[in-house]
């Protein structure tokens, strides 16, 4: 087995939003810093007009940048925007038609995998399989917090995958599902917004408690309101319950056979590039090291949820992450 390192340029969200890079110049920086070879991006982030109205020149310029930097396309991340309309959510056929052009564009551009999302029901997946097969694009349902390998929605997907049994239907495990602590940067952000030390302790206790993410958040919010904590950090804390999951690392084993790509989610790396405080990489990579084939993994830095580009460079963070992963993998 081996894990092929790479990056999703979602990691560079701050740099991208600030407008300091075009898509080709961002790819050039990834190449210069040797953050490949794998390259992933989010269609709705990186391509104007995605998926049906993307300028052909933009696609050509992107693919030329990929080629000159000797990068390999790994995954185009799609989105299942089922609640685009506030009152009329997408039904099965509307969801299929929303996903179709995304999958077809992934195929045209040469991405072997499209990341898909949990909002897609078994009925939708069944109808997407022939579209993916025709486009020669494997669909990888991202298993991301608050879901995990064994949560009800994922179990429903696993069942339909077993029934259809197609190589075009797989999973993209995202390590946000299996975290051992709330990312320290997020705690700092809530403190800056006015959450007290007692509020942080309460938040941590509720994050570690039993129940659905919504139940745990509501319980925290009620306690925090009663304690007089400010409204803003209470509202912002909702993200913690959706972004950071608590599944066991070893549970990923159940998805190993159908894993088509991995999101190496991370928020921080220690000073000597051997560990990540909020995510137990040694335990998690050990599971994926058992695969009988090479699997691509994008380093996915999400610290931009609480750090600015002038505080932390996403390029530096991904470089550190690669060093950490190489160190850990070399131990197996």
């Amino acid at each position, binding site marked *: 087995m081996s894990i092929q390192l790479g990056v999703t340029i*979602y990691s560079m*969200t*701050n740099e*991208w*939003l*600030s*407008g300091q890079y075009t898509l080709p110049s961002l790819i050039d920086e990834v190449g210069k810093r040797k953050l490949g070879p794998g390259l992933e991006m*989010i269609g*709705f*982030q990186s391509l*104007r*007009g*995605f998926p049906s109205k993307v300028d052909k020149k933009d696609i050509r310029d992107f693919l030329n940048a990929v080629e000159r930097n000797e990068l390999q396309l790994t995954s185009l991340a799609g*989105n*299942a*925007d*089922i*609640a*685009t*309309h*506030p*009152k009329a*959510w997408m039904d099965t056929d509307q969801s299929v038609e929303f996903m179709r052009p995304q999958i077809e564009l992934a195929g045209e551009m040469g991405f072997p995998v499209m990341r898909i*999302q949990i*909002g897609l029901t078994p009925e939708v997946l069944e109808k997407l399989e022939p579209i993916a097969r025709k486009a020669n694009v494997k669909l990888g349902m991202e298993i991301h917090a*608050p879901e995990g390998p064994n949560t009800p929605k994922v179990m429903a997907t696993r069942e339909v995958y077993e029934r259809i049994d197609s190589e075009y239907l797989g999973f993209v495990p995202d390590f946000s599902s299996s975290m051992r602590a709330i990312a320290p940067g997020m705690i700092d*952000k809530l403190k*800056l917004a006015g959450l007290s030390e007692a509020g942080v302790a309460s938040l941590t206790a509720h994050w570690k408690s039993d129940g*659905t*993410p*919504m139940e745990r958040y509501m319980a925290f919010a009620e306690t925090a309101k009663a304690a007089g904590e400010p409204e*803003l950090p209470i*509202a912002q804390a*909702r993200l913690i*319950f*959706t972004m950071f999951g608590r599944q066991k690392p070893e549970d990923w084993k159940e998805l190993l056979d159908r894993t088509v790509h991995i999101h190496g989610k991370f928020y921080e790396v220690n000073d000597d590039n051997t560990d990540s405080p909020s995510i137990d990489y040694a335990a998690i990579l050990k599971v994926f090291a058992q695969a009988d084939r090479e699997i691509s993994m994008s380093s996915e830095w999400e610290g*931009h*949820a*609480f*750090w*600015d580009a002038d*505080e932390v460079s996403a390029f530096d963070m991904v470089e550190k992450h690669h060093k950490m992963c190489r160190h850990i993998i070399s131990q197996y």
Partner: protein
Amino acid sequence: MTLEANVIRDDAVSRTSEGYDVAVHIAWYRSLPLSCIENINITLGDKSFTCEDVKLKWEGDLLPLSALADRTEDWWFVQDALTFHVPDASPVNAGEKTKLAVSLATRIPYIIIGPNFPLVQRTDVEKEVTVQ
């Protein structure tokens, strides 16, 4: 910090003959359709404007916020600012400084956090800006 830091920039406010134009960047990492804008409140100096006062300038039209729900095919690209028109009979002059506060609520259409309950991301930002 972060996505919030992106929302209003130093040149966000421009004086017009009928008030102000306020340039607002998206408080999310990817593009969203206009239909996902649930609410916006804008404060300039000591005057506050709700979603009933504020209108979106879009392709030559002035759209009330209540008209956005059906705009599922019109996209707010992640690197672009949207321009919101704020009516004010006595706006401060160009070149003067004023406090700008924006409270933005966007529905995240693929993050469903409860039965029929999507995540609505609320972002509050405030900055002293020079009116253009």
